[in-house]
């Protein structure tokens, strides 16, 4: 239990330092922190006997000693090199600390608020107290409990009913190469009012030597008819530890589309939990993960069909090379009396190396009868007929395989509407593919062609 104690000690130091600097916190926050700490202490870090963590070993986090930082210094030039080249309302966090210098919200439409959590709390903490913790208490996992105990910063996005944000809202999380690894526990709240519409991009990236621990919790609420597209582009350094849980609540006729794109991180765990609570609600989960070296990427998704006439559609793809390990656990639960449900789930994986491993488990749990549910999981090789066809056109075998691997990832990427994101990922995938595929230069050339 000493691992847990290290984190509790840090929490005690932090709480004391905060009290001395800023005086006491509002009682509701202090109470939640306490509940989070107590829950975390009771649960401890999950071991592999816990079903939800069967394939993911979190000792790299548990045994770490992570500091907390108050500095948001980051070279503007490096930040510019890392950032997505896209016109957006931008908030930037460096190791979890808000950086006003690297943020540019531009002009937001009327009725739309995008602000750092600290500012939202300072302005009106009671307005935050309602939605915060509504979708995830401290019960969900030891990590969400830990986030609740530590949370200080993050983002609050409020969309008034009927508001439409044309430009994407970009929440950028930068990770630095620190002498001592740091941890951050960002909390993101998105409240999409009735019939509002927006695109939110969470971009996790940083310096290549960064070795920090990010423990993110998102709470996303879609009121009647709201439409939200939510990108999570995770390109963290290959030494970063990244745990995230995204909790979504959907009202009647709302549509939530998630793109969960994972390219970086040494140990990555994503939980996406969506409650379809209103008739006509629709959720789309798109995912791509590409891991190499000794990367470990674990994606858990859960669609709770709590109301009749709700729809979910899931498509996750994984590419694993070297000694990387991928985990996919997709679960669909249809509650009793939730009739006329459609839920489809698919997971396809490619293993590029004999030492790579994929553990996949698509689950259906169904208590209503008027449903159409399906899932499929495939792991295998490229279509040899396609390889053959390309070769009959004069392409050598390795390049053909490279192109088809890219095409495999492309099936997820073609649903991406933001070109900047699609290109970024395609380049990254092409760049990560083994040299034997001879793809270097090809994709860049194709894209520059595209730009002309």
């Amino acid at each position, binding site marked *: 239990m000493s691992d847990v104690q290290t984190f509790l000690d840090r929490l005690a130091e932090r709480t004391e330092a905060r009290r001395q600097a800023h005086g006491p916190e509002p009682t509701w926050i202090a109470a939640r922190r306490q509940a989070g700490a107590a829950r975390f202490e009771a649960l401890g870090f999950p071991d592999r006997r816990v079903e939800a963590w069967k394939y993911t070993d979190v000792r790299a986090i548990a045994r770490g000693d992570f500091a907390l930082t108050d500095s948001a210094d980051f070279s503007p030039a490096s930040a510019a090199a890392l950032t997505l080249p896209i016109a957006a309302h931008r908030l930037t966090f460096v190791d979890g600390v808000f950086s006003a210098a690297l943020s540019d919200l531009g002009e937001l439409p009327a009725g739309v608020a995008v602000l750092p959590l600290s500012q939202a709390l300072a302005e009106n903490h009671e307005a935050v107290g309602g939605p915060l913790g509504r979708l995830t208490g401290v019960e969900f996992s030891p990590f969400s409990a830990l986030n609740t105990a530590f949370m200080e910063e993050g983002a609050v996005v409020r969309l008034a009913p009927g508001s439409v944000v044309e430009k994407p809202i970009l929440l950028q999380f930068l990770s630095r190469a620190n002498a001592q690894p740091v941890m951050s526990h960002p909390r993101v709240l998105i409240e999409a009012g009735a019939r509002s519409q927006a695109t939110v991009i969470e971009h996790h990236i940083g310096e290549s030597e960064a070795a920090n621990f990010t423990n993110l919790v998102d709470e996303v609420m879609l009121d009647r008819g709201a439409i939200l597209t939510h990108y999570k582009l995770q390109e963290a350094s290959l030494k970063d530890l990244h745990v995230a849980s995204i909790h979504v609540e959907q009202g009647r006729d709302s549509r939530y589309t998630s793109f969960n794109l994972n390219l970086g991180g040494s140990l990555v765990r994503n939980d996406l939990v969506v409650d379809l609570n209103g008739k006509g609600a629709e959720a789309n989960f798109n995912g791509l993960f590409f891991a190499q070296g000794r990367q470990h990427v674990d994606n858990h998704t859960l669609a709770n069909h709590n109301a009749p006439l709700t729809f979910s559609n899931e498509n996750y793809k994984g590419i694993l090379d070297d000694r990387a390990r991928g985990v996919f656990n997709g679960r669909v639960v249809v509650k009793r009396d939730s009739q006329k449900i459609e839920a489809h789930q698919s997971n396809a*994986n490619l*293993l590029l190396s004999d030492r790579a491993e994929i553990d996949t488990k698509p*689950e259906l749990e169904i208590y209503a009868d008027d*449903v159409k*549910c399906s*899932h499929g999981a495939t792991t*295998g090789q490229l279509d040899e007929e396609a390889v053959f066809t390309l070769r009959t056109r004069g392409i050598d075998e390795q390049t053909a395989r490279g192109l088809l691997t890219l095409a495999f990832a492309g099936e997820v990427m073609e649903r991406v509407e933001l070109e900047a994101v699609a290109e970024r990922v395609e380049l990254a995938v092409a760049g990560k593919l083994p040299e034997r595929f001879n793809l270097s230069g090809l994709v860049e050339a194709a894209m520059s062609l595209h730009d002309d």
Partner: protein
Amino acid sequence: MASQEMEQLVRREYKEGFVTDIESDTIPPGLDEGTIAFISQKKGEPEWMLEWRLKAYHQWLKMTPPSWAHLDYPAIDYQAISYFSAPKRPEDGPQSLDEVDPKLLETYEKLGIPLHERAALAGVAVDAVFDSVSVTTTFKEKLGEAGVIFCSISEAIRDYPELIKQYLGTVVPVADNYFAALNSAVFTDGSFVFVPEGVTCPMELSTYFRINAANTGQFERTLIICESRAQVSYLEGCTAPQRDENQLHAAVVELVALEDAYIKYSTVQNWYPGDEDGKGGIYNFVTKRGDCRGDRSRISWTQVETGSAITWKYPSCVLRGKDSIGEFYSVAVTNGRQQADTGTKMIHIGEGTRSYIVSKGISAGRSNQSYRGLVKIGPRAKGARNFTQCDSLLIGDQCGAHTFPYQEIGNSTATVEHEATTSKIGEDQLFYCQSRGISEEDAVSMIVNGFCKDVFQELPMEFAVEAEALLNVTLEGAVG
């Protein structure tokens, strides 16, 4: 504890507790070393067998019942169970069919069970109507000529100790799981089959032949060995609803296939599912595993599960030999308050191994059913392939159908495909059949049988016909 000390302890207990009791047929409920010594003594087992049982017992004491299955049942009091009772004497059972529950007979009628067998199944003293002994003798002679050994496991322990020592517990180790450990400690009977090199067993081996061997159901232990190029088809259970006083069933089945051997194991399980509230039904916790030890060996499991209140069962294949094949074909039907958590494990170890899984689940009434499967491809299993098709059909809105397939893939040359669907019985399909003049009940049974066809065609012919009839009986009253 050193083994010598343990041995002494056992002997002492045995001496003090049971030496005088040994002639009695039943022991009081409860489980301790003495119980096991009693069973072993009663079966006339050699000492090494007793030690083996005790080892299992001590492992069991350290284990806890599994809780991961999607099942809900009260905790079992293992000390309230009687672990040995001699076969019932004919005079204890009903003396004629007139004394048998007419409902049971009605079901036999629907299933098309021949008259003389109905009596046997209902527990009527059968010697007068059905001379099972002579039938068995005829078959035994034929098998003997081929060199096939087919006998009870107790006989095998006495008569073929070397084979038992070589194979027993090598597929399902004594401490494999809670129920397997319990079975290893207390099993009282079961079948033993040995098919020597190059021999194709001249007939299908069926537990039908030992219809009279009452009370073997509770802790059954089966071991089937096929040497190189040997083949056997084994049929377990029968379609008639079987009543049993023992609520807990924990069987273990081990299959060993050497080079080029083929074992086909078919089961029809129709134990008492309990009354309308699920009371009194059988708890069926079974461990079945086949070991494809030799290259190009093949093990095929086919099961039709319609009975029991609780089913916990995952017939599996360990594909060790190069190019070996594992198959699992399953139809599970739950109605009323039944709960079933069933599926398979395919462990690919050798190169070029292949596995096929076809699972069809039908949930009706207030029942709950889960498919739980594991496909594991080890790093050495080059070119391994798996195909899984897993479909659930829901009849009524109070039942549940769940799918939990695990895939662990550690070889880039493997191809693993899993497809699953869950849907309700199609209104438009029903309408189509009805518009052709077929009644709703018949239409449902046609569609359900069609849904299960991929599995039924894997069953031996006469079993398949019975299985279809059984399905219809099980689903009676599920519609309308």
